[in-house]
């Protein structure tokens, strides 16, 4: 297998808060191949966004990376100097966010915002930057890009703003795009269009995409592979089809069962009992799902199966649900 576009290996992040240290991520490992779309799913607070911020190097001042590497093109982003990271950010890895309306500078014309990134990362002269910005707007499917480039974010719809965000993210043709809930707050039609644009740009440039979402249905539709996170741990990773056919981690299974489908009725949906564990606790069980898990064994409190960060599949469970041999699932 070729070197992955991004390899995250044993990443741990802690937050210093007034009420103690929050172990937000612990031993997170996964990889994404060139051209691949990887979905990272999990409920709110599972550490999806923190993982992305850590990779981008835009974690809050209160957060600290306590272990791990994130290797992109031979460079460990977590160990890189500030200057090196400033070069990588926006050029090699770009990110788009949820709430596109607030993610854009409200008092700067969108064309200028794209031009800012072009001037920073692409070899573009100040004279040519506005023209290049218009071209980028065109590639993300904005009609009348010349006029729209002069618009302010508040003059555009949410979907338009997200297209602008994508144009900003793709300005320097990054090798990896991290999309953090890019369609939250958009209507279903716009969601589909935005996801199509991302997929289209990814396949046009061979860019890898990490797609963070809590919408399993969307992940099922769009991702080649899915990583499931729970309480700052990666619990399972599989090809999309295999994950839905044979979820092996009890949490994945519960998550799928709790996802509404076309035919299911409200009464048929199951819920996942309990809550995320308090990540401030001094002594957490080795498996952070243990307290909610119906298949918990004694060993779950003390040890967790390790994950191979380079493998396409991962499973952090001593007592998985159904156990087809790993090779067969792949």
């Amino acid at each position, binding site marked *: 297998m070729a070197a992955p576009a991004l390899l995250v290996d044993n990443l741990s992040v802690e937050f210093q808060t007034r009420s103690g240290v929050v172990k937000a991520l612990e031993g997170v490992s996964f990889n994404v191949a060139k051209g691949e779309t990887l979905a990272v799913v999990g409920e709110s607070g599972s550490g999806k966004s923190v993982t992305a911020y850590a990779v981008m190097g835009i974690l809050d001042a209160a957060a600290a990376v306590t272990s791990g590497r994130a290797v992109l093109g031979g460079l460990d982003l977590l160990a890189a100097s500030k200057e090196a990271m400033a070069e990588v950010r926006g050029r090699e890895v770009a990110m788009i966010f949820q709430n596109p309306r607030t993610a854009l500078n409200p008092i700067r014309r969108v064309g200028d915002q794209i031009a800012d990134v072009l001037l920073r990362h692409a070899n573009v002269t100040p004279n040519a930057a506005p023209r290049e910005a218009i071209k980028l707007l065109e590639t993300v499917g904005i009609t009348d890009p010349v006029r729209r480039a002069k618009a302010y974010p508040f003059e555009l719809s949410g979907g338009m703003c997200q297209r602008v*965000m994508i144009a900003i993210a793709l300005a320097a043709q990054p090798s990896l795009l991290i999309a953090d809930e890019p369609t939250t707050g958009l209507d279903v039609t716009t969601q589909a269009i935005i996801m199509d644009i991302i997929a289209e740009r990814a396949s046009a440039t061979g860019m890898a995409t990490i797609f963070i979402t809590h919408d399993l249905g969307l992940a099922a539709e769009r991702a080649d592979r899915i990583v499931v996170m729970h309480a700052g741990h990666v619990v399972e990773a599989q090809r999309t089809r295999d994950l839905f056919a044979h979820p092996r981690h009890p949490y994945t299974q519960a998550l799928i069962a709790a996802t509404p489908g076309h035919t299911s009725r409200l009464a048929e949906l199951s819920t996942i009992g309990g809550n995320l564990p308090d990540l401030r606790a001094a002594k957490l069980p080795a498996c952070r799902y243990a307290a909610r898990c119906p298949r918990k064994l004694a060993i779950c409190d003390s040890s967790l199966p390790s994950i191979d960060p380079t493998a396409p599949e991962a499973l952090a469970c001593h007592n998985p649900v159904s156990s087809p041999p790993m090779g067969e699932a792949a």
Partner: protein
Amino acid sequence: MFSLIFNRLMLAIPSLIGVVIVTFLLTRALPGDPAAYFAGPAATEQAIAEIRAKLGTDKPLIVQFGRYVSDLARGELGNSLTTGQSVAKEIATRLPASAELTLIGLMLVVILAVPMGILAATRPGSWIDHVTRIVSTAGVSLPVFFTGLLLVYVFYYRLGLSPSPVGRLDVFLSAPPHITGFYLIDAALARDAEVFVAALKQLILPALTLAIFALAPIARMTRASMLAVLSADFVRTARASGLSSSKVIVTYAFRNAVLPVITTLGMVLSFLLGANVLVEKVFAWPGIGSFAVEALIASDYAPVQGFVLTMAALYVALNLAIDIAYGLIDPRVRISS
């Protein structure tokens, strides 16, 4: 944009009319009879009545008001009873003195307080944050006359760095030819370096006194506003796009944070304009504030009216300038107007 300015000007007219009426009534309601004051303690009833007739204060209020308004329409603000000078002329020479002092003070504030606020916001908990907090707390807690006297004591009496704190210019120099009334500008226009430097030396201590007082609101507002904007989503986007930190802080964060700072600046400026009487007294500055206070003590209502009207007009102009600045900075203001 032009419709915004026009609308704001139209809105200013009712407030100006209100100010004219209120100042007229207020000055008439002041205790003390200007005619009696003017006639002196030894004057007879008859003499006072004559003066009253001359001043027109024996007529009904409505007639007085009519005369007052028609005078105003001709730009006539009446004469001071104590000095006999035309109030309009007096204000025209004294207002630039106050305005120059206040504007230089404000410039000092902006130069000092805005970077302090930005640095304090970008490095919360650092030494610069603490220094900002201490300096701004000290700035508001020390009364201006005290800061003024302290500066005079240190820089004039102890160190001898600044000239004696009396007036706008050294007594041995003559004022530059009157063009704007701002000595610094007039001296620069007249290419008179000596007068320029001398005027600047006189100006720096009172301006600094004002600046120290105004430092706190501006620095604190800049800090708070920057902190709010720095945690906004679009700043995160700018960071994630790898934009340089100066670009992120200046173009993305500060331009968004500047609106409340401008509002505060306008409030501070109008406050300083009217309230720097104490500084003018300490530095024997021939400004409009001390002029108004002296007139008020003497029940000399024409200068008081003139002062209040001037201040009201300035205040309206200032608010208009702030609104225009808002429109220039924030496109959303332009649209909604």
